[in-house]
């Protein structure tokens, strides 16, 4: 199949049919993989563009690693759960389904690059008081969260529909989807914690990775710092 990313955008049913009929070989994964890497690099460059060109370069390298790394780490788990639930999917098919979902998400990200870039160029002050910088940082962070959430929702919706097309009818698609999504979110959060910073803070110096990136994990941080802070009403 030629140009899989474009097929996934304009005629997804044809892709699912080809996958179901096992017409796709390992060499076909190159197209979506290159597409995901390129889009993540472009979006990564914009994501950190407000802080410094150096961080922009770092994030352009790190974002593809985050996405592809997460796929690689959960791939075997995805295949095992699919087999366990009787989905009748090969390892290759599970990888293709996940890549297809990620490609859809990347299309959304790519389409919103001009929007993110415009907000970056028009809404982020270069200088200002600490309060102004903090406000701008939070605003750009919210913008990116909304964009990435849209991409995530579109990707997962495609994943859900795709699974319905390709799995055996005896397999419960919602359960399989929930397993895959949980694994992806669980690993993805920790990967992003290790690879931080992505957006960059105006109060920290630019670094490829934080010096304490392997000291704690994402969930320790949430349970020991974020939740107590929220429970205490921000005191």
């Amino acid at each position, binding site marked *: 199949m030629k140009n899989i990313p474009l097929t996934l955008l*304009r005629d997804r049913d044809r892709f699912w049919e080809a996958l179901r009929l096992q017409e796709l070989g390992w060499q076909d994964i190159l197209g979506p993989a290159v597409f995901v890497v390129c889009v993540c690099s472009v979006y990564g460059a914009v994501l950190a563009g407000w802080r410094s060109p150096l961080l922009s370069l770092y994030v352009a390298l790190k974002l593809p690693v985050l996405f592809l790394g997460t796929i690689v780490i959960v791939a075997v788990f995805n295949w095992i759960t699919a087999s366990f639930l009787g989905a009748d999917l090969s390892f290759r098919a599970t990888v293709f389904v996940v890549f297809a979902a990620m490609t859809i998400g990347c299309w959304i990200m790519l389409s919103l690059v001009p929007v993110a870039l415009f907000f970056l160029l028009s809404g982020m002050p270069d200088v200002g008081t600490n309060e102004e910088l903090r406000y701008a940082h939070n*605003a750009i962070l919210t913008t990116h969260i909304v964009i990435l959430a849209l991409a995530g929702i579109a990707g997962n919706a495609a994943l859900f529909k795709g699974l319905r097309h390709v799995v055996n009818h005896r397999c419960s698609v919602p359960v399989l989807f929930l397993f895959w999504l949980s694994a992806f979110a669980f690993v993805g959060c920790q990967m992003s914690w290790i690879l931080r910073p992505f957006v960059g803070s105006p109060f920290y110096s630019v670094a490829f990775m934080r010096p304490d990136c392997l000291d704690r994990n994402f969930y320790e941080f949430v349970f020991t710092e974020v939740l107590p802070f929220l429970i205490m009403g921000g005191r």
Partner: protein
Amino acid sequence: MSDRSNNTPCPPGSDGREDVPVTENIVTVLLKSTHQVGDIIARQAGLFNSALVLLATALVCHGVFGVAIGFFGGWQVVAMDLVKVPLVAVCSLFICFPSLYVFTCVAGAPLTLVQTFMLGCSCLAMIGLLLVGLAPVVWLFAVSTDSPPFMVILTLLIWLIAVSFSARFVARLKSHALFKKRTGTRLWFFILMIVTLQMTTFMRPMLSAPDKGWRSPGKKFFLSHFSSTFEHKARTDLIKSSEHIKSRP
């Protein structure tokens, strides 16, 4: 579908209403028979020219609305808003154009690039036509009030009404098979609104003349800009009332 004339019956994709002659002006079709725009977009013939006509219409209409707003700040602001308001509209559309294409495709309505351009221009023209309709209302308040927050709220309200009509126009296209799935365009309107608000902030001020050049320097988020408009007014009112108290015998 592509060769339909006046007398041929509507295709199954249409909702059975009477067809509009192909030769009729695209702006008239947009105003009077919005459902026909779906057929025109699907037909594809001469679509780019129709889109350009709609874009020009949108620019003129936004220009008229700009003039109406500009009266709030005097003739200099009228001249500025005559250019700024259409610029805000067209720049926002171009920034959001990739997302319109991708969102419609992902939602299951794979439009071509020209069809997407036509859809975007139709939406903008619909917003412009509504703004022209409400321009006299804005003009009336612009010449009879000196409260910037009131003008901001009024303009926002009128613009939101225009955008909602445009969204309703896209909803009416669902009679055509190409526009059955509308999740993508709904989401796109949200993106367009946010981008337009930020574009307005980028080209600020719209209600008064800047100290230097054609826009105020500095980068700002739209929420920060709009809230500062209200804060400034509140501060001015406070100063005025304290001066009033001081001046009492």
